[in-house]
């Protein structure tokens, strides 16, 4: 019986038959199917115990309360807190996507590093913390030995008033350098305006929830302005009952943003003419006698004409406004119909609790001083200052200030030297930092005056609206240190990386969330163990100070950052007021109206501190409304429509070469007494309008970060394909304008400005003002990972930045451009 072909076939046939009668083929089929259900390359999230940790989001100055849901030690979700007064439950998309910033190795620095590749290549090698600190301490001490401590400069993007930013400023000062520079934001302009007209230093505080008529001059209430969790919640409240809607929202903006198009009324004023509009409204209100005579007569200065020392007759605010801002004229300037101006003014003045607010977009970009003053005047003449639903004027939050530094000789000599950005000089008397000037100074001089630059929580290379000036300046700075936890564009330019924790891993404080109408001190707590070898920047500063020694060391007598926070909190306790418990049942803004609140809900400082550390906040309900007679700290002791401070400053500067020169040099087009009062200045531009017939205006959207914080990839899902398609971002352009250049939907165009050009696609949008191109901020990263790198273009690259008169802040809303169809 040999095994020939036929028999072998029989053998196989038998086998085939036999196997059918066993489980093998059937179980195999099933198992292979089950294999596809459990493919090894599909991640299986580990199970464990669910834990919830409360903290505060510090991705923006809004400081919303967040609760992090964890599985054992792994964070799996961020949710809004309902037991935190700023945001009752909701947060913004960025905060919601926060975990993608925490758990993404390719956008984070995992340990200290030093540069090996060429600048900007982002090639670093790992080093130890000791090595890194020694390197930096050595460099700084070196500068001090060379008696040029001022060559140390710091760029700080942490919220103003935050303890960390104080520590950074303190470090720079202690070393002996005046060059502590901040990233400018709307609040800086706002505080300047307040300082000039009210003499107060308190932060921006709008009682939105209690207002019944909100006139917003470009504030992106729905684009992430202030604390998004709070403002958007307020929006919800305003629309609670459609049947009897109480609140009216009016948006002044040149583009149908979410805010503009969802508002009850949209006033489309040309960008940069808001001041004129505000004054136009004042005109109507004054003319119709709708203004608050009590406030104007009793508590204000410079409303009516007056004669100054020496019997010189001066024209007051009233005269100026009546003379120069008639609806007709304003209509001409702003492009808003004069009837609209009139009706708007009457609605505003007629409302029970109106408030006019300013700070364009998210408020993360600087504003125009005179515009803010004009809006302030609008609130003033209607008597909306320190009234429920109006603007609340507060003392700064009573945190105790850090002990005085006793400077050694090197330091004090260094501090004598002028700031590189000339902020606070006679030319820019009211600004305390001008980053655009710093860049200019460096670019101007052959050798960078800055030797060592420390960068904290900032990505100026990408976020500054300066047409790339700062990026250029960085190339000249010999030594750059980045404290960023993220691999951002600025960090790529750095020589030394001292990575900070992410906001979920570190202790930090929120001092007065942006725009909130009552004082609040929040504590952001580490809800996660640091996943990488990073350190809280504040603790790094403490270590650094030790190593530098001398007066620097003595300026930082603390071991850990928590000690500093606790020490500052002592001030809250000694203020003898404030609450640390909040259960979310009765919103603070409701209780605020009474102006009185229960006494402190803690007996001792230790008790208060323990509660703050657990609950995360301290806030105060007491507020004295309408205390106009003792509220203002101006030279006149009144609200100054006519700012004596400006007058003094201008005259002081004029001593050098006469008033006309002074005005010109300060960038003022206005003449005479106008310049001391809120007035409209046409934004100066050196560009030739015939070659650049169009305007480009960058805008912010809530589901795309435009600050130093990377964009969580989840948010890309929420972008429309008319905002980003593939790697191309879109510019919003009015169909009418598009037709002129025969540009169709989706066409590729080049936008050219004096600073350069970018390639984008066109999105035809009726809501865009004709003649203006609108580009979203936040695209065009050259750093980070595949989720954002190389996606779209960054309008900042082509912004033709001017200077705001008097304040000197960058003007980003006036870029002349032309388009070329590809």
């Amino acid at each position, binding site marked *: 019986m040999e095994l020939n072909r036929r028999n072998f076939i029989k053998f196989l046939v038998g086998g085939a038959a036999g196997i059918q009668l066993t489980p093998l083929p059937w179980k195999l089929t099933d198992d292979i199917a089950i294999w596809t259900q459990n493919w090894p390359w599909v*991640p*299986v999230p580990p*199970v464990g115990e669910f834990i919830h940790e409360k903290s505060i989001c510090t991705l923006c100055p809004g400081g919303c309360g967040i609760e992090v849901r964890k599985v054992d030690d792994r964070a799996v979700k961020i949710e809004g807190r309902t037991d935190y007064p700023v945001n009752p439950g*909701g947060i913004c998309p960025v905060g*919601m996507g926060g975990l993608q910033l925490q758990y993404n190795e390719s956008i984070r620095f995992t340990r200290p590093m030093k540069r090996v590749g060429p600048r900007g290549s982002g090639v670093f090698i790992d080093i130890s913390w000791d090595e890194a600190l020694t390197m930096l301490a050595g460099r700084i001490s070196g500068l001090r030995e060379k008696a040029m401590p001022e060559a140390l400069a710091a760029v700080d993007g942490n919220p103003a008033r935050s303890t960390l930013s104080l520590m950074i400023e303190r470090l720079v000062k202690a070393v002996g350098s005046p060059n502590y520079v901040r990233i400018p934001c709307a609040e800086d302009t706002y505080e300047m305006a307040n300082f000039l007209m009210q003499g107060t230093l308190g932060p921006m505080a709008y009682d939105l929830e209690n207002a019944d008529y909100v006139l917003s001059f470009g504030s992106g209430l*729905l684009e992430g302005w202030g604390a998004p969790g709070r403002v958007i919640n307020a929006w919800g409240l305003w629309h609670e009952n459609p049947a009897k809607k109480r609140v009216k929202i009016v948006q002044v903006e040149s583009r149908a943003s979410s805010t503009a198009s969802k508002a009850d009324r949209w006033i489309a004023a040309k960008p940069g003419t808001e001041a004129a509009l505000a004054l136009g409204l004042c005109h109507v209100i004054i003319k119709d006698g709708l203004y608050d005579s009590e406030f104007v007569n009793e508590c204000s200065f410079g409303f009516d004409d007056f004669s100054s020392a020496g019997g010189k007759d001066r024209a007051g605010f009233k005269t100026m406004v009546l003379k120069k801002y008639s609806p007709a004229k304003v209509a001409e300037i702003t492009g808003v119909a004069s009837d609209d101006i009139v009706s708007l003014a009457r609605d505003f003045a007629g409302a029970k609790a109106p408030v006019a607010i300013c700070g364009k977009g998210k408020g993360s970009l600087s504003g125009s001083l005179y515009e803010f003053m004009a809006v302030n005047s609008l609130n003033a003449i209607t008597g909306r200052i320190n009234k429920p639903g109006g603007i609340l004027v507060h003392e700064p939050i009573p945190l105790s200030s850090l002990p005085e530094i006793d400077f050694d000789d090197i330091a004090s000599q260094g501090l004598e030297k002028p700031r590189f950005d000339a902020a606070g000089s006679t030319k820019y008397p009211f600004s305390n930092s001008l980053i655009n000037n710093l860049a200019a100074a460096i670019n101007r001089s052959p050798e960078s005056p800055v030797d060592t630059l420390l960068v904290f929580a900032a990505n100026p290379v990408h976020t500054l609206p300066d047409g790339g000036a700062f990026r250029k300046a960085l190339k000249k700075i010999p030594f750059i240190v980045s404290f960023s936890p993220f691999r951002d564009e600025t960090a790529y330019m750095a020589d030394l990386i001292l990575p900070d924790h992410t906001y979920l891993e570190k202790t930090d404080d929120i001092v007065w969330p942006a725009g909130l109408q009552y004082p609040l001190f929040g504590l952001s707590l580490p809800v996660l163990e640091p996943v990488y070898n990073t350190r809280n920047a504040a603790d790094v500063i403490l270590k650094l100070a030790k190593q530098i020694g001398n007066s620097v060391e003595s300026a930082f007598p603390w071991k850990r950052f928590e000690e500093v926070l606790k020490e500052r909190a002592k001030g809250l306790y000694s203020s003898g007021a404030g609450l640390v418990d909040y259960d979310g049942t009765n919103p603070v803004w409701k209780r605020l109206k009474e102006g009185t609140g229960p006494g402190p809900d803690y007996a001792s400082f230790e008790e208060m501190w323990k509660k703050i550390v657990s609950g995360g906040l301290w806030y105060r309900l007491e507020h004295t409304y309408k205390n106009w007679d003792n509220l203002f700290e101006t030279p006149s002791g009144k609200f100054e429509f006519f700012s004596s401070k400006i007058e003094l400053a201008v005259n002081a500067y004029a001593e050098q070469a006469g008033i006309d020169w002074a005005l010109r040099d300060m960038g003022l087009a206005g003449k005479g007494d106008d310049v001391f009062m809120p007035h409209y200045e046409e934004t100066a531009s050196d560009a030739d309008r015939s070659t650049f017939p169009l305007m480009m205006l960058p805008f912010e959207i809530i589901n795309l970060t435009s600050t130093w914080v990377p964009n969580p990839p989840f948010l890309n899902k929420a972008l429309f394909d008319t905002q980003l398609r593939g790697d191309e971002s879109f510019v919003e352009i009015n169909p009418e304008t598009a037709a002129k250049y025969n540009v169709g939907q989706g066409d590729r165009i080049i936008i050219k400005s004096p600073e350069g050009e970018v390639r984008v696609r066109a999105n035809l949008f009726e809501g865009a003002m004709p003649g203006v191109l609108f580009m979203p901020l936040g695209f065009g990263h050259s750093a980070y990972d595949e989720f954002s790198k190389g996606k779209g273009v960054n309008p900042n690259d082509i912004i033709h930045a001017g200077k705001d008169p008097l304040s000197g802040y960058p003007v980003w809303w006036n870029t002349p451009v032309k388009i070329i169809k590809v």
Partner: protein
Amino acid sequence: MEKGHGHGNSYGMVIDLDKCTGCGTCMVACAAENNLAVRPDESDKQRSITWMRLYKVTNGKEFPHTEVCYFPRPCMQCDHHTPCVSVCPATATKMDYHTGIVSQIYTRCIGCRYCIAACPYHARTFNWWDAYFPKGKGLERYLSPEVSPRMRGVVEKCTFCHHRLMRAKNNAYAEERRELEEGEYITACTEACPAQAITFGDLKNPEHKVSELVKSRYAFRLLEKLGTEPKVYYLSTKDWVRRMADNYLPGEFKPIAKVKLG
């Protein structure tokens, strides 16, 4: 009005479009809650996986009278003759008459995409790729164990965060309860919405706010004429917005007389 079949609950959602600001937090919350796959390029909206998707509509008027409105669109959990359920050949999707929620079982789905074709709301998306979790990036560390990540080649859709219902039940059981209070079970998007534009609850339970809201004169649903009886309702005082929600023959649409404000 009697919703759903049999007894039990009929969970539904009411979205106030006047409150909705189009911020997209609902989308992000949904993605984070349900382990949605994120690819480097999410700009191809025909292939990007979203359970809750925002549609942007404008009234088409020219500058400066343009108005924009956003339609957040989860799965409608159609109550009647659910289009996707009857067509699925492998019984991978079913309507649970005790919750009114339409399930989708990824491990059962064979990826024929018939359900996608049958759904007029585009509420269903297909996994064209393997989930994107490159080695060494560590993205998978934020995944929640409550929702199973999907494999390539299957269809997925909004589940009304069904796992949250299970979570709520577990909590109740721990307290020896069987019945859930209103608000104990809400979806991630409802919870996240900073404008409180979304209300979630049991349409069958007169106590629940939703059953009140759906009676509003401003309430409407998407493509009601098709008779799919969605359990997702919308509210808007704007006629042009309500008109956007369905196809109308000339003269068919009945505007609501504007109510006086204040």
